[in-house]
């Protein structure tokens, strides 16, 4: 595609990790790709997440994506993208402080093992053997040794860089308003820079995708939710696991750089006037700090350097929609990742590439992530 050309075989809406990784795979296959991004590359959740690459505690409908990514893509992704994605596979601990937490965790473990994931319940003491800095408050945990974490900034920008190398074009600063059909197929993308045209359109613009899909009569029940993350000063290596808690007090890990990357929700952000911006809320950081200190008292005197907020695209039934839309031939959609799309993104883009090029996903089973699964009860 030439710089001033407004058409391509495939137009991708959204320059997050889904858009960048799919652009990379399509361009590698020789397809002409144009990515339209409203702001900057990785402006959304893809640069704001906590880097968890987790299979445990996932809905089994999306587990095939997570297991495929961990077995086949993450271990060699740094070489593939020619950038250090800082992938560390040291397991995931999901911590419980009460009997109720332990019961909830045990139920999650049962579901995951039923589809072949190696995850088990361990006692508080066993968890402290794995991660000695943990406080006595931890009663039990789920333990998935093959889980891990990576650097979301390097991963997203690494896919972007490689997509460029294979000939994809990215246009940033272009806001997409909607889609238009021509002769029964979706063909045009309406933007603040006029109309762009493609044979096939992939919509992966996070929570903003819903309104764009609405313009061709498709509605997916997705809403947004704010979560915040902070990073600390550099510390000596203390632990390598990805951490989460049954109570959702916080999630996160220590990065390769040595800083801790920790996140979570304050719980009352929704009731503030700026909920739908990417701004942090003054109640959240104090609450997260107290949460972390309860589990890891040694971190009390570690300094916080910066914090930020990001938006989850939360789907009504907890898993994303990744599918071709049959009423709108030529349209593929991928959104509703519910706050954990980063870890599966390298596998999602394989499915998306196949949906676009072959009409169906052959390598990975995404049959439960169909777009037409929603029906009001009763």
């Amino acid at each position, binding site marked *: *595609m030439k*710089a001033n050309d407004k058409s391509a075989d495939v137009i991708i809406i959204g320059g997050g990790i889904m858009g960048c990784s799919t652009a990379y795979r399509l361009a590698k296959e020789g397809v002409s790709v144009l990515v339209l991004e409203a*702001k*900057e*590359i*990785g402006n959304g959740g893809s*640069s704001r997440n906590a880097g968890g690459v987790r299979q445990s505690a996932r809905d089994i409908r999306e587990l095939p994506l997570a297991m495929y990514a961990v077995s086949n893509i993450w271990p060699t992704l740094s070489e593939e993208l020619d950038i250090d994605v800082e992938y560390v596979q040291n397991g995931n601990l999901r911590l419980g402080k009460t009997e109720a937490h332990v019961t909830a965790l045990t139920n999650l473990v049962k579901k995951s093992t039923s589809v072949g994931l190696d995850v088990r319940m361990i006692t508080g003491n066993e968890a402290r053997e794995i991660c000695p800095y943990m406080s006595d408050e931890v009663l039990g945990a789920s333990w998935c040794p093959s889980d891990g974490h990576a650097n979301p*900034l*390097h991963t*997203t*920008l690494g896919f*972007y*860089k490689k997509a*460029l*190398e*294979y*000939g994809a*074009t*990215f*246009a*940033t*600063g*272009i806001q997409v308003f909607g889609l238009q059909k021509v002769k029964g197929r979706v063909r045009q993308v309406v933007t603040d*820079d006029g109309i762009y045209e493609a044979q096939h359109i992939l919509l992966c613009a996070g929570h903003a995708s819903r309104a764009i899909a609405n313009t061709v009569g498709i509605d997916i029940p997705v809403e947004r939710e704010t979560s915040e993350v902070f990073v*600390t*000063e550099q510390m000596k290596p203390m632990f390598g696991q990805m951490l989460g808690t049954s109570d959702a007090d916080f999630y996160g890990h220590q990065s390769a*750089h040595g800083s801790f990357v920790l996140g979570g929700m*304050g*719980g*009352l952000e929704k*009731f*503030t006037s700026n909920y739908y911006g990417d701004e*942090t809320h*003054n*109640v959240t*950081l*104090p*609450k997260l*700090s*107290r949460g*972390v*200190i309860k589990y890891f008292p040694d*971190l*009390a*005197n*570690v*300094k*916080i*350097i*910066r*914090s*930020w907020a990001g938006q989850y695209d939360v789907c009504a039934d907890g898993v994303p929609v990744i599918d071709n839309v049959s009423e709108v031939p030529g349209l593929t959609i991928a959104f509703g990742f519910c706050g954990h799309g980063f870890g599966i993104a390298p596998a999602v883009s394989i499915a998306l590439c196949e949906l676009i090029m072959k009409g169906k996903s052959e390598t990975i089973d995404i049959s439960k992530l169909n777009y037409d699964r929603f029906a009001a009860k009763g």
Partner: protein
Amino acid sequence: MGIIIRTKHTQPFIPQPDDSMIICRCEEITKGEIRKAVYDGMRTINEVKRYLRAGMGLCQGQTCQRLVLGIIASESQISAGELGHITGRMPVRPATMDYIGKSTEHSEGVERYESK
């Protein structure tokens, strides 16, 4: 920020004599690394920050931001005004988790809205 079109670079990367000059002192990022980041496709100041950590250290870019912007602008032929600025982030100065955790304890107005 205006529209920026990004395509594959067509020329090889050409090193310059002052490439080893340190620009971001907190994270020790050199001019050459920033030039290479632009060559690899990074355009805005936040993209360069995320790619290299330039401006992510203790001073949060207060020292190097203008210099980094100048390098991106001259490498990409885009005016510095189009390249954004490093997003200001809380806390303004580094503070311990203990201090921040207690920071809303005595403030009634905030306490009312806080979840336990």
